[in-house]
């Protein structure tokens, strides 16, 4: 029985239980006792008891049976020898599994041939394509595996349905005027809400664990020291899998490129964003504000890929040609350069800086402004000498958050910064970043367990750690800052 069908039946049982429960509650209300809960809470309680335990069981059962099946196949496979036809045990198992899936497409009463050569056309006719190194000995194992799977599925389905019906009966027997159905339902809801809010933690744990796992695997073949302190990035894609020469995975060139570009971006974004925020908060008339603010929000709503394309299609060539005209010959700005990428990223960050600092500047109490203006300070003196110093911690936090955005930004640098991992101080040359290399290493056909792809996770966890520290420090500073003026 398929899981979908079981799900549908469980849902149906739940719905029936809901109506019966509600009906019973209504019928019992003869006016002599004031019911504790309204009738539909009894219905919901019955529904939840019919559905939730059953679904939980089904999920556990499915996971358990797939693990069991895998072991079963393992056990059934012939002992591995040096001249085994299939490269690895894992591949063996996965071939059997796809064969088993393929066999399900055949009509039930098809006579199975003993050799794969004869079987293949039958399967192909059903639109099932299988790897050619599927071996003859796998056919009976696959048939057996399917039988086991069917048996497990049936048992699981029956147990699930029994549990569902039992749950429904249990809930329905509880229906009584003074039964606290509402409290029961609400307690379950509260658990649901709590579960939803733990997803944030699970995500973080997922990020850390998944990347850590792959990174440890990566460090099996490349030493951490040569990754963190290496100055050469040369992963040698061509050599992947040949087992011969190892690539070199030095983080330093990527990290310097990342920081260099982020620095250029902040050089653009911080003064411009901060001044815009100051102007909007302190000088702009309401009319100007009502036009400019949404415009800046639109600037913030443009996806980064658009900035990246603008950099590579329009601005990069323009700057290159401009520099060629300036020197009267060869251009000193390359089409993809730190400067171009940083400039465009800086513009992308202007609204980020300005909206963060706007919040922070307007959080400075009005009394501060009045105090300064009342002493005869001009507006700019008030801003420069009172408001900005008062807002400084908040602004530092905002700049840190912006820097973390700059470091993690991907699409602009993928398009505009270049892919060559070199170490240079010249902002008009190309440099590459951590994010660019993550994308480079993981797009295209990959062999998952080679250092060439695993390095992306080592880069990712470096990036994550870097931004995590910046974010937490920034959020802490901003929070403290806000509390000061609350």
């Amino acid at each position, binding site marked *: 029985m398929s899981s979908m069908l079981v799900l549908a039946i469980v849902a149906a049982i739940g719905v029936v239980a809901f109506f019966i429960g509600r009906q019973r509650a209504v019928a019992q209300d003869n006016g002599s006792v004031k019911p504790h809960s309204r009738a539909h809470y009894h219905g919901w309680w019955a529904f939840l008891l019919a559905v939730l335990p059953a679904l939980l069981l089904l999920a556990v059962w499915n996971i358990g049976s797939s693990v069991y099946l895998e072991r079963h196949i393992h056990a059934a496979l012939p002992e591995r020898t040096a001249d085994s036809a299939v490269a690895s045990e894992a591949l063996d198992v996965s071939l059997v599994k796809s064969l088993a899936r393929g066999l399900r497409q055949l009509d039930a009463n098809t006579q199975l041939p003993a050799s794969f050569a004869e079987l293949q056309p039958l399967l192909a006719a059903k639109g099932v394509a299988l790897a050619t190194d599927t071996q003859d000995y796998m056919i009976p194992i696959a048939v057996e595996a399917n039988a086991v799977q069917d048996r497990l599925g049936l048992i699981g389905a029956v147990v699930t349905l029994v549990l569902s019906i039992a749950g429904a009966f249990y809930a329905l027997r509880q229906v009584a005027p003074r039964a606290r159905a509402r409290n029961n339902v609400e307690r379950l809801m509260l658990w649901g809400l709590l579960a939803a809010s733990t997803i944030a933690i699970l995500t973080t744990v997922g990020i850390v664990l998944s990347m850590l796992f792959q990174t440890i695997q990566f460090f099996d073949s490349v030493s951490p020291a040569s990754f963190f302190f290496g100055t050469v990035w040369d992963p040698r894609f061509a050599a992947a899998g040949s087992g011969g020469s190892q690539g070199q995975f030095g983080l330093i060139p990527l990290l310097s490129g990342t920081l260099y570009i982020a620095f250029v971006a902040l050089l653009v974004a911080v003064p411009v964003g901060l001044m815009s925020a100051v102007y909007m908060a302190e000088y702009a008339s309401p009319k100007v504000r009502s036009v400019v603010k949404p415009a800046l929000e639109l600037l913030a709503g443009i996806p980064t890929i658009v900035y990246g394309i603008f950099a590579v*299609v329009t601005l990069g060539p323009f700057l290159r040609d401009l520099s060629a005209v300036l020197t009267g010959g060869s251009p000193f700005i390359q089409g993809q350069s730190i400067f171009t990428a940083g400039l465009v990223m800086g513009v992308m960050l202007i609204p980020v800086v300005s909206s963060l600092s706007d919040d922070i500047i307007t959080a400075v109490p009005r009394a501060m402004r009045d105090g300064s203006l009342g002493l005869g300070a001009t507006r700019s003196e008030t801003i420069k000498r009172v408001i900005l110093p008062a807002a400084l911690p908040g602004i530092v936090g905002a700049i840190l958050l912006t820097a973390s955005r700059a470091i993690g930004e991907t699409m602009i640098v993928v398009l505009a910064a270049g892919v060559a991992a070199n170490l240079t101080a010249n902002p008009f040359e190309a440099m590459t970043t951590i994010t660019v290399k993550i994308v480079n290493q993981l797009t295209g056909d990959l062999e998952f367990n080679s250092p060439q792809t695993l390095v992306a996770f080592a880069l990712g966890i470096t990036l*994550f750690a870097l931004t995590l520290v910046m974010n937490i420090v920034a959020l802490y500073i901003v929070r403290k800052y806000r509390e000061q003026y609350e």
Partner: protein
Amino acid sequence: MTDIPLDTMVRAAAPARRDIGLKARYAAERRFRIYGVLAISVGLAFLAIMLITIVSKGYTAFWQTTVTLPINFDEKIIDPSNKRATDPDVLIKANYPKLADKALMAKLGIDPSNKPMALKLKGFLSEGARVQLRDIVVADPSVIGTTRNVDILAAANLDSAFKGQIDLNVEEARRKVSDQQIAWMNQLKADGTMAEHFNKGLFTYGASSRPETSGMGVAIIGSFYMMVIVLLLALPIGVAASIYLEEFAKKNRFTDLIEVNINNLAAVPSIVFGLLGLAVFINFLGMPRSAAFVGGLVLTLMTLPTIIIATRAALAAVPPSIRSAALGLGASKMQMVFQHILPLAAPGILTGTIIGLARALGETAPLLLIGMVAFVADYPKTPFDPATALPVQIYMWANEAERAFVERMSGAIIILLVFLMAMNITAIVLRRRFERRW
């Protein structure tokens, strides 16, 4: 005594006016203001330049040049040995381009036996003509033997030439359209055979190696699937989490931890979510690569913090008096939240959700890692089939060298921006309209 007339009033000696450097200070004031105006102008000017260059490069993508030809579905070419009744493959394998070429030669008055001339015609019509004519015949074999007018796409280079985008002053060998083709083009243009039409294909075609037959159909469907998944998952989970944190959670280390996590996740680089998706959903849980479902899950995790932060702000803005009123009438806390607080916070939640969705729609980096940079020609029937997304499609076109792809890319950016602007403006309007001061 209160009204001493000013003129009879005894005045104190006028205090000596101090020099408080007003001139220099006002100059500084003016400079400061100018910096502010400059800063805002820089931002807005950049926005304007960017939009103008993209629109000027991309608006032509919404028109496509076609050649209307009377195609004679000649049985001798399609099915010379008359076997189509027994072998349906005949209709698939037939030499359809020849039908189009014949019709074009007839139109231009070229003698088909004039080989050099006929050779120059190569690359005038799109390769897509084959599929176009094939589909007509397969759908209705009875057209064989008849003649009917069909709009056939011009090749990308001719399309560019027709739109005036190719510099004809460049010497012939160095451009992609020959003088003879230009002459034919002008001839066809004069009699109205060749004309620009609204480019429906941009919205319906899938991936193609030829610009004129490539479109965003697959990407639009992929993005649509992902938005639906994000909406269905992120909104309920986000709202549930916010309700718990804002209304039920006690302040303790666990809720502090959740809080720090949410704020941090809102600032984690999006590419990290891509790595998570690749490692957990694809590698560990064995979900299919390139599928919109996985993309939707990744974007959901990315969007959740945005929705949670907006929702919590909206919930916190509902005044305590409403809570007390509901509780005072004997409502349970759960009833209070779902019947009173949530409806009042709905506009704020909606605004946050729209902004979150808009961000997700424009997100590219994590989708690259889960394999959505794929050449997908067929529409994905379910969210589990390979698909691409709008921004990824743009990225893929950005990596193509041909001029016509840049045009399509810019057109696609315009469409993406229109979607995003519409969403953002909706959010801004919603916020303005429902902004409630308690």
